């Protein structure tokens, strides 16, 4: 068993034993930890994994608590109805807030979460229906199969059962097709879109999930304390949830437990001990909290979880396991060789006053390898970005198999079986080689977040991973399957990029300088691989600087200089073309 699993087993054993061993006071404290863990877990996924920061989760906790509070006390409804109503209300609110904020760039979301945190705090405090600043009292206990959960120990069982289930679901989610996409959101959104992932929708899903977890925590809180008031949902509480996520390690599921436990215990202890040193009353614990956060952010920005994980892994990394064999994924029927595949007509792209691509036109047929060459800054990578929809063209047409694609976003173009590599390696550094390549096969699976959480996706997952492993093997990196992609040499990372593109089962493969940084032998095997792909019917558009590599490989070449096509033809024609020679070697004035 790995150290991680032992730690989790010990933790669960502790949870099982705790209510029988601990005094009531500590059981209550454990309940608070569980409630905070639920909210923090949402933040871990939202902030640490997906890169969306929220200081407003306490609002969703408030929705969950107030919904059930009002329904059970004013209308005498069952707590279960309160749960449903709270989750439904939260879902609608989170979708509305999420739709308008998750598309905006980084800092808008946290500022707006602060703003709505304040807005709702004052709304809770002034609405007659929810008891203004006095709150709602006498919220009944939850009853389950006729058993009324009155005691702290009863609540303990319920709170931790829910919390563990949520932790497990989140763990399952991250280890799945959707999870890999979510893990790419923070730093690699453009790459994700290029492989068909709808990043805006996925961010919304994560935002919704985090909000629902918070709402669930609010429901449990209301029925455990039998009381809600606005004080529990002020802005400071929202900030503390985020601190918990940061302390624990914002990118790890189990970091939520560590962060929530540490800060809850520390707060309790500080509240107990600090007033002894000072005469006046005051919120001394917030000063200490803030002061502790600073060195943590300066020294261990990723939180404590990675530190602990490193300790556990000191005895060498676990060897990579190749995924079990599984039925191969269905392959796409490509066009017959010689059919028109890709056509550019009069494509323009400007960056401010700079014309990166000017009136570019060329045709490409199925089954060929077309080289796109030109000096640095000629606009080759811009052409790639326009064809794959990463950048919109300013004018002109791009057609793929006869249909216009120049107005489509990258993720729709990916659906047409166009896959690419990036000039600047675009891998998710912390993810293994295998998982990175599996992102390429994203569109070949269909299971979503819900089935991932419930582990209903295992059959498909095996097939996706098996396919990814096959592509890794093809580029000769099987020995590195389980290693984080960031630990590979640059040339190897480029090969991972190619494997990822291959996992998409592309009809058209766009390779942006694949041979850069490769050694001689590696270049030869890459060339062999590309020839094999062509033989299998894949068409390849290749940007490359290494002339020996290009000339021996391609059928035809398009040469660009200063954004314009200056030549097109067979390799030996291009080599003799005076314009090309001038562009590369400089003319004689």
């Amino acid at each position, binding site marked *: 068993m790995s150290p991680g699993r032992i730690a989790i087993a010990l933790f669960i054993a502790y949870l099982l034993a705790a209510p029988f061993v601990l005094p009531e006071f500590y059981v209550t404290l454990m309940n608070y930890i569980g409630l905070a863990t639920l909210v923090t877990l949402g933040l871990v996924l939202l902030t640490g994994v997906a890169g969306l920061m929220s200081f407003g989760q306490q609002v969703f906790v408030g929705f969950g608590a107030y919904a059930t509070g009002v329904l059970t006390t004013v209308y005498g409804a069952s707590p279960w109805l309160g749960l449903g109503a709270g989750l439904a209300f939260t879902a609608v609110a989170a979708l509305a807030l999420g739709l308008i*904020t998750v598309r905006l760039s*980084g800092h808008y979301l*946290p500022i*707006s979460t602060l703003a709505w945190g304040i807005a709702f705090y004052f709304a809770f405090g*002034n609405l007659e229906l929810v008891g203004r600043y006095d709150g709602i009292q006498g919220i009944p206990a939850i009853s389950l199969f006729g058993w009324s959960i009155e005691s702290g120990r009863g609540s303990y069982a319920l709170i931790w059962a829910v919390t563990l289930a949520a932790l497990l679901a989140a763990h399952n989610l991250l280890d799945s097709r959707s999870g890999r996409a979510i893990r790419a959101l923070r730093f690699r959104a453009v790459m994700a879109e290029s492989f068909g992932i709808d990043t805006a929708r996925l961010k919304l899903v994560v935002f919704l999930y985090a909000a629902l977890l918070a709402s669930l925590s609010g429901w449990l809180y209301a029925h455990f304390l039998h009381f809600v008031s606005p004080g529990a949902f002020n802005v400071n509480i929202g900030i503390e949830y985020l601190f918990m996520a940061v302390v624990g390690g914002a990118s790890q599921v189990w970091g939520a437990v560590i962060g929530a436990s540490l800060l809850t215990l520390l707060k309790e202890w500080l509240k107990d001990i600090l007033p002894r040193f000072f005469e006046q009353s005051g919120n001394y614990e917030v000063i200490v909290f*803030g002061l502790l956060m600073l060195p943590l952010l300066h020294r261990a*920005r990723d939180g404590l979880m990675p530190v602990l994980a490193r300790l556990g892994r000191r005895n060498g990394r676990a060897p990579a396991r190749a995924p079990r064999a599984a039925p191969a994924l269905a392959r796409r029927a490509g066009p017959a060789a010689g059919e028109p595949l890709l056509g550019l007509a009069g494509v323009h792209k400007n960056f401010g006053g700079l014309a990166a691509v000017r009136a570019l036109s060329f045709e490409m047929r199925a089954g060929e390898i077309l080289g796109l060459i030109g000096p640095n800054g000629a606009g080759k990578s811009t052409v790639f970005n326009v064809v794959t929809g990463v950048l919109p063209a300013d004018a002109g047409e791009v057609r793929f198999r006869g249909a216009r694609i120049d107005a489509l976003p990258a993720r729709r173009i990916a659906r047409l079986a166009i896959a690419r590599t990036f000039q600047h390696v675009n891998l998710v550094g912390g993810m293994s080689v295998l998982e990175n390549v599996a992102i390429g096969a994203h569109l070949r699976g269909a299971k979503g977040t819900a089935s991932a959480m419930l582990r209903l996706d295992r059959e498909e997952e095996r097939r996706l991973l098996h396919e990814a492993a096959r592509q890794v093997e093809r580029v000769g990196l099987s020995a590195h399957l389980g290693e984080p992609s960031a630990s590979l040499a640059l040339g190897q990372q480029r090969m991972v990029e190619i494997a990822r593109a291959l996992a998409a089962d592309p009809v058209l493969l766009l390779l942006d300088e694949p041979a850069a940084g490769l050694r001689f032998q590696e270049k030869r095997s890459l060339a062999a691989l590309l020839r094999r792909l062509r033989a299998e019917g894949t068409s390849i558009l290749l940007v490359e600087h290494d002339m020996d590599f290009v000339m021996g490989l391609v059928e035809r070449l398009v040469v660009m200089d200063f954004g314009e096509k200056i030549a097109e033809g067979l390799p030996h024609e291009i080599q003799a073309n005076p314009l090309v020679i001038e562009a590369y070697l400089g003319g004689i004035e």
Partner: protein
Amino acid sequence: MGADIFAWLVQDGITNGAIYALLALALLLVFTVTRVIFVPQGELITFAALSLAMLESGRVPGTVYILVFGGLAAAAIEAVVALREHRLRRLPRIAMLYVALPLAVAAAVWWAAPRRPDQWVQVLLVLAMVVPLGPIMYRIAYQPLASASVLVLFIVSMAVHYVLTGLSLVFFGGEGLRSSAFSDAKFRLGVVDVTAQSLWVVLASLVIIVALWLLFERSIYGKALRATAINRVGARLVGIPTVLTGHLSFLLAAFIGAVSGILIAPITTLYYDTGFLIGLKGFVGAILGGMASYPLAALGALAVGLLESFSSFWASAYKETIVFGLIVPVLVWLSLRSRHVEEEERE
């Protein structure tokens, strides 16, 4: 609503809006130059306003402790760095700036406070106490993370905000304070009495805005700030140190925060945590302006002031809810306008 009430609400809105406009400019300045969402600006407002009120009643405000101990902490960090880099010649300057200067200010406040000096002396003392907190804050909390992502810097801001609100409660207590007006004069303008205090606020804001504009357009430091805001790497390549522009923007922001606090102290009763809300209203103004343009940010802040004034007339209890809810339609608009896949965070 009669014309007189309307005019009075407009006056009230413009007065507050002028202060929010100043804050919006400062927040925008800090954000564009350092990428820091400067939430602790709010605490600087609180410190300035409450320190003024305490000086008025002849007491020594706790701000001096924050200044002295903050200065000592910054000096310690600077000294460690200087020792590690074997640049001992920097030590006297460090001692001068971070230790001697705060101590001198503290001594002046200790001496002056019980003697109840004139109001303008009080104002100068408050500025001397609060303005240095900006660079000190930058040195301790932000400079070690100057290259971190916006989101990490945001968490740092929240941590600093946390520390400072806690200290604010310790030093100023839970009760609200209000200082006396600079002048009780009123002028009749059409149907409305314009208070001299409102004129003070609007005039001071205008003067500072013009001064800032001159600074940006005419001085080498202003140009350095603008260059850093437009392109941080480029600015460094032409020899503009990020540390300098960081300190400078925090100094300016702290000055503006302190002035805002001094201006608002006679208008509203402030509590130890009121500044946070006031500062965030400046943010709402800056967001209304799209977090990029200074004139738009100032206009947005003015709109926030007017909205606040009118909503306090119609739905007083929901004033804050309405003002902070205003951010939602603005974000809808910004969101509809943005078409690209959001730029990625750097690893």
